[in-house]
């Protein structure tokens, strides 16, 4: 799966990787808010935003093409809306729509590509996201690919038997049956996980690993990012 690439990227090292996840999150939000509030006509602002992002990508020591390629996945949807907006007689807004969504997607991708998910979740928790939600996301991510693989195997097995010429109705109910089995195995897997947790002394509370320290460099980075985004927004 292509996200595996992003996960590998997140474990590399670079000045950007080394920054505290909270600083990167704050920088991202400042950037996204600035973009979102920029009027469509401010073409120079969008150029400046792109330049700022390019600097960030360079400091992350990640491949340009790979990043841009993945960020381009948002384009089909924005291109449709952009086309509609263009034909409705507002070309400036159309371009702005496409550019905004692309740059925003690229910035978000950069965050994920330079921050392992565990760090990101820790940062979100320290910023106030409720504990149960963080834990659910953690477990979800852990078992996402395991269960998806199971589903893929079921699909493959079903395809191997498709030549039997079943009618649409039977195939529909076969799919429902497969879904039921996947559900059952998932639920039972959750029971097994809980047993394994108990077996290693779990008595009700999950504890996080040591939270990272927010250093001077992180603070400087955050300030620089917020200042740059704000400056572009106000000046251009």
């Amino acid at each position, binding site marked *: 799966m292509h*996200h595996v690439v992003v996960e590998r990227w997140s474990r590399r090292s670079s000045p950007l990787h080394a920054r505290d996840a909270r600083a990167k999150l704050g920088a*991202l939000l400042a950037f*996204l808010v600035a*973009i*979102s*509030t920029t009027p469509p006509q401010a073409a120079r602002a969008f150029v400046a935003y792109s330049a700022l992002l390019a600097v960030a990508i360079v400091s992350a020591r990640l491949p340009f093409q790979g990043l841009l390629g993945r960020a381009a*996945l948002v384009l089909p949807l*924005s291109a449709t*809306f952009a086309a*509609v*907006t263009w034909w*409705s007689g*507002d070309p400036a807004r159309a371009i702005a*729509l496409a550019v*905004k*969504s*692309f740059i925003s*997607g690229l910035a*978000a*991708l950069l*965050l*994920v590509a330079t921050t392992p*998910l565990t760090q*990101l979740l820790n940062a979100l928790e320290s910023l106030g996201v*409720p*504990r*149960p*939600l963080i*834990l*659910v*996301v*953690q*477990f*979800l*991510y*852990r*078992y*996402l690919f395991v*269960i*998806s693989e*199971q*589903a893929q195997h079921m*699909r493959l097995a079903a395809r191997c038997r498709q030549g039997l010429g079943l009618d649409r109705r039977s*195939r*529909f*109910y076969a*799919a*429902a*049956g497969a*879904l*039921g089995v*996947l*559900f*059952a195995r998932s*639920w039972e897997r*959750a029971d097994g*996980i*809980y047993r394994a947790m108990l077996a290693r002394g779990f008595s*009700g*509370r999950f504890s996080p690993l040591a939270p990272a320290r927010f250093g001077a460099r992180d603070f400087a980075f955050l300030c620089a990012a917020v200042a740059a985004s704000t400056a572009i927004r106000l000046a251009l």
Partner: protein
Amino acid sequence: MHIPDGFLGPAVWATLDLVSVPAVGLLARKAQRDLEDRKIPLLGVMGAFVFAAQMINFPVGPGTTGHLVGGTLLAVTLGPAAAAVVMTAILAIQAFVFQDGGIVVLGANVFNMAIASVLAGYLPYRLWAGSGWRSAAIFAGGVLSVLTSACLALAQLLISGVPMPRRLMLVSLGLFLVSGLIEGAVTLAAVRAIERLNPVWIRSPKDSGSRVLGAVAIAAVTLVAGGVLIASAAPDGIWSLVGKLGLTAQTAPWLHAPLADYQVNGLESAWLRKATAGLFGLVLVYVACFLTGKFIARQRSI
């Protein structure tokens, strides 16, 4: 539909972020109270299941396949609060890991697909599952969960000024309806398959107290009213849609007046009139879904 960054105006996403944050916090706390701590891994694993389940293709027409969205199925097996938490986790993963849906607008997507959609999907089940209309209720829930999230997303785009010609909006609404019907059918089939394996996994609606029902009903009404309010920002689209549905010309006079002018005569403020009309429309939609579901359930007759 997952709204990416850059589409919604700041007023819209800021408001929805502000609404979603405490709502999710409340729901997370409620889920933690209702379920034991052991359920945290279960919620995570069920979230992973929903992701994986979306890979299973359901043939719905010549050459077309549909798949499960999952909000209603989660609500019926885990309860609405837990389902909302799981859907939020799913949306967060989709936004951060898969860049499906924006980050600044995550609050909007959460509101549409984790809160409103789950509540709308659970409401029929909560109201009607006790009687013999369980299958119809599940089907209706599936339809409404998709319709609600799609219409809210559409309304948010409209109010953000994204231009939408009538034809595109009609096509979109048509697609939403089809997706809703698919979700209803797939959810119902899935619930039946799961029940056959272990009936304990499908919650009995009597698990939740009537206070929840009241809260849910109020939430639904608020959503409808809010939806109508927001949609009134694009009156052209709605009225031409109503016109195209033939309600102006062919329907009986007593029906003609309220719906064509989108007002109910005899009530004072314009906003209240629109909201009441919207509510009336929603009731019609509920009844239609419910009757369709009953019809389909009878066809299955297991």
